[in-house]
């Protein structure tokens, strides 16, 4: 479904992503783990078209999206829930969700709203509230719900557990699994490697901009090097 081939991304003189290739198949949960600053978000931003790779290629559903503007990529069914949630703080919960459905016809989003409200009942209670007044966990729910509103075939989630209490982290991860069961393919970027590896089928380990290891998520979870570096021994 998504195929990234040999991309390189620079921030001025810094070579942030080196020759990265990865693949996500239809229906999978794939995770990209690595330390802070390894280049995980940079890869997602490049796939979404916010950054450009001078080399290589990116294919989504067998179509090259490397030079496509970000809004066209969303139209193709590839959405991202960005790091730090980035919800529209001054707009209401429902307006945020409506923006998520920007690529859809306005009269057809009722069903999608219901689906998001079923996944996150808290959002329904607060739908007229300004998003800036939500708690951190609720904001993450809103960001994920907003991501679903474009009916993505592939949803990329960037650090959805960041800054959340352990109980909320559990809830977010079980929602990700549920979204996947309902048919959305997931590419998950996480620092919480243990949780990410527990729900993913396939994993890539990123170190200072390049892929150091890749393979079956369960096998990587018991790999000694991975355990030492990312799972606290």
């Amino acid at each position, binding site marked *: 479904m998504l195929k990234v081939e040999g991309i390189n991304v620079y921030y001025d003189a810094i070579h942030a992503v080196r020759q990265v290739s990865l693949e996500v198949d239809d229906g999978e949960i794939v995770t990209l783990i690595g330390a802070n600053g390894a280049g995980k978000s940079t890869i997602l931003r490049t796939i*979404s*078209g*916010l950054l450009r790779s001078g080399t290589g290629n990116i294919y989504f559903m067998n179509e090259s999206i490397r030079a496509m*503007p*970000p*809004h066209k990529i*969303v*139209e193709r069914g590839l*959405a*991202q829930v*960005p790091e*730090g949630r*980035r*919800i*529209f*703080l*001054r*707009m209401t919960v429902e*307006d945020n969700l*409506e*923006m*998520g459905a*920007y*690529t859809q016809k*306005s009269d057809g989003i009722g069903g999608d709203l219901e689906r998001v409200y079923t996944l996150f009942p808290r959002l329904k209670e607060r739908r007229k509230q300004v998003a*800036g007044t939500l708690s*951190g966990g609720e*904001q993450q729910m809103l960001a994920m719900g*907003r991501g679903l509103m*474009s009916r993505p075939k592939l949803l990329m989630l960037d650090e959805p557990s960041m800054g959340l209490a352990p109980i909320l982290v559990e809830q977010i991860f079980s929602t990700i699994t549920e979204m996947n069961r309902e048919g959305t393919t997931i590419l998950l970027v996480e620092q919480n490697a243990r949780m990410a590896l527990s729900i993913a089928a396939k994993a890539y380990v990123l170190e200072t901009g390049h892929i150091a290891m890749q393979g079956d998520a369960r096998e990587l979870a018991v790999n000694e090097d991975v355990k030492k570096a990312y799972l606290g021994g």
Partner: protein
Amino acid sequence: MLATLLCFNFLGGLYMSFLSHLISGVSLGSIYAIIALGYTMVYGIAKMLNFAHGDVIMVGAYVCFFAVSRYDMPVIPSILLAVAACTALGVFIERLAYKPLRSAPSLAVLITAIGMSYFLQNSAQLLWTSNPKVFSSVVGNGSVKFFDGRLSISYNVIVTVLACIVIMSVLTWFTGRTKMGKAMRACSEDKDAAQLMGINVNATISMTFAIGSALAAVAGVLLCSVYPTLMPTTGSMPGIKAFTAAVFGGIGSIPGALLGGTLLGVIEIFAKAYISTQLSDAIVFLVLIIVLLVKPAGLLGKQVQEKV
């Protein structure tokens, strides 16, 4: 008895002149508010100060002037022609001068905008000479009389204030209720996040310039209906004052533009009437400085939001 009557008459006269100054202040302020909307919306979304905005007003006034006086077109089509011309001009300016600088330092964009302002003024001078044209009011010079003729409100004033109310209501509805309007607010809050929603940010910026410039045309026609001298520099001072009004009310905020514009107009007219005609502009800018010292984000300005 006679003394009391005289006294009432005198106070009544004072009251009437106060009322009439207030009304002209609100009317001038409405024009500032309409111009300020262009500054504030463009700033909110493109995060740039379009100093050429004032000169778009002048172009709008010229288009309307020539349509009416040289081509004998009726008033309404002339205004629509001015609106169409300014909309196209605004979009063209953005595409040509600002879009290539989207990721350039803000100083470069600012200087480009100032350059664009001079470019428009000088082009107007070349095309239409610097001889002032006498603009005739699009609604005629009549007025409505109240209190046995002691208070008269001109058609200009009535039309200006009405236009401002209509524009404000439509814009409030547009940004609050429509998908396109909400997308504009989303862009003004977080451009990257807006792109990830599938919003075409470039198209949204063009749209904002189109709306702002269309309003500039309306403001140009209203302005020249009240102050009939039309020259290539006509838009410059009202442009700067409207920019002041936008900052005064809180740049980026639509209600702020209305509040800032109206207050600025009223202060200016009162300063002219009760203090000094020569000093009125100085007083206007003094008030701005004081307000900004106390409230740096303007009256209704949004403080920069902290990430939760």
